[in-house]
């Protein structure tokens, strides 16, 4: 029994609405409801960034919400993945180029999985989250690998010797 295989069995989701029209949020809530029931994969919708693994963002980033978005992302402990959910979160959607919105969340935080659709269907969201789990596992493995710093001997001393460039001292006759 390998302990490592348990990792992706309990992703806890944090859902953040960055100015969405609630279309995608309703679909996310539909995933939690009895029909799609994502709790069978061990997924819980926590409201708490400090205990969650997957950040599920909907909506184009309005100028009010961008600071909170970055703050929430910073509060999540590694390893973490970001799923942008819906056309607005991916590219800005119909709000792209408007004065009060930014074009998609990837202008502020790194995104791992893009889920398309306006609003994206529950099946697509579940698919996206499952896709994100593979990335989460890879990230965990990357974190685990020890980093060895390479130390190579210096072949040629390129530094200037100060004695070479020093001004000559003329002997006083």
């Amino acid at each position: 029994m390998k302990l490592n295989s348990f990792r992706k069995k309990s992703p806890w989701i944090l859902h953040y609405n960055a100015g969405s029209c609630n279309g995608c949020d309703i679909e996310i809530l539909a995933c939690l409801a009895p029909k799609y029931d994502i709790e069978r994969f061990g997924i819980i919708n926590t409201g708490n960034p400090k205990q969650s693994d997957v950040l599920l963002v909907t909506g184009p980033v309005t100028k009010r919400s961008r600071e909170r978005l970055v703050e929430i992302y910073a509060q999540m402990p590694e390893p973490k993945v970001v799923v942008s959910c819906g056309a607005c979160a991916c590219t800005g959607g119909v709000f792209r180029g408007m004065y009060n919105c930014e074009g998609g969340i990837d202008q502020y935080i790194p995104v791992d999985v893009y889920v398309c659709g306006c609003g994206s269907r529950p099946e697509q969201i579940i698919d996206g989250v499952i896709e994100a789990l593979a990335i989460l596992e890879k990230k965990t493995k990357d974190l685990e690998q020890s980093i060895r710093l390479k130390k190579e001997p210096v072949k040629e001393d390129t530094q200037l010797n100060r004695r070479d460039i020093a001004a000559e001292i003329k002997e006083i006759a």
Partner: protein
Amino acid sequence: MKDILIPVLLILLAPAIGGLVYGFERIVKARMQRRTGPPLLQPFYDFLKLADKRKMIVHSTHAFLGIMHFVSLWFALAVLLLGGDLILVIFLHLLSTSLLILAGYSTRSIFSHLGANRTAISILCYEPVLILIAVSAFMLTGSFDTSSIFNYGASLLFKMPLAFVALLMVLPIKLKKSPFDIAEGHQEITGGVELEFSGIFYEAIYIAKWLDCVFCYTLAYLFGANDPLLGMGLVLFVFLFINGLDNSSARVNYKQMLKFSLVVALPIAFINLLITILFLQL
């Protein structure tokens, strides 16, 4: 030797048993809502995952208080299972909860403060009732020791049924189940005191929840301690009752909870005490 072996094994395996109970609880809750639900070992998967996460702490005292909450709760459970003093058990449980409250107040997070406030209120709700139940058990058996309940001639359930009713009323408060889950309130205060814990330090709080399950079901078992079959039946009944109630009711606010506990549950426990004394006089 054999008498001590079973309690010691139970104490050592208490987190594992609690985890299984918690996993089973999630399945039962899911089935009540016509969902499939997570696998039985899901709490352990969560446990292993949380161990992998980066450790972020607010400050060292906060993390330490969280761990001490878990340790002292385990200690309280150990005293209960080894047949110790019931009053001591209740106060050790109070100590562990108050450590959690201190942890809640030690951060600057407003949700953490709210959770600590509400946890303090829920202590006010269940603690007097538990103490009155312990006192009525003392009146019957002549000792506060849990072992004397086991050695008593008849089951406590038939001797003081009203105490069991009072216990049923306060157990949802203790286990943080709906309608009395104001201390946790995932939709309002996102977990309350446990909000600021993360990674391996949240794990201590998470396992403490499982231990709380074992603690509460052991209290229910005490009412049928004389007859193991009756005891297990009571535990099963309490399990189904609490989860059914959790699924079928909405959260009340803290005033309603306080009112319910002090006006309904506490008088029932008190009447039970009076009746017990009256029967002893006859």
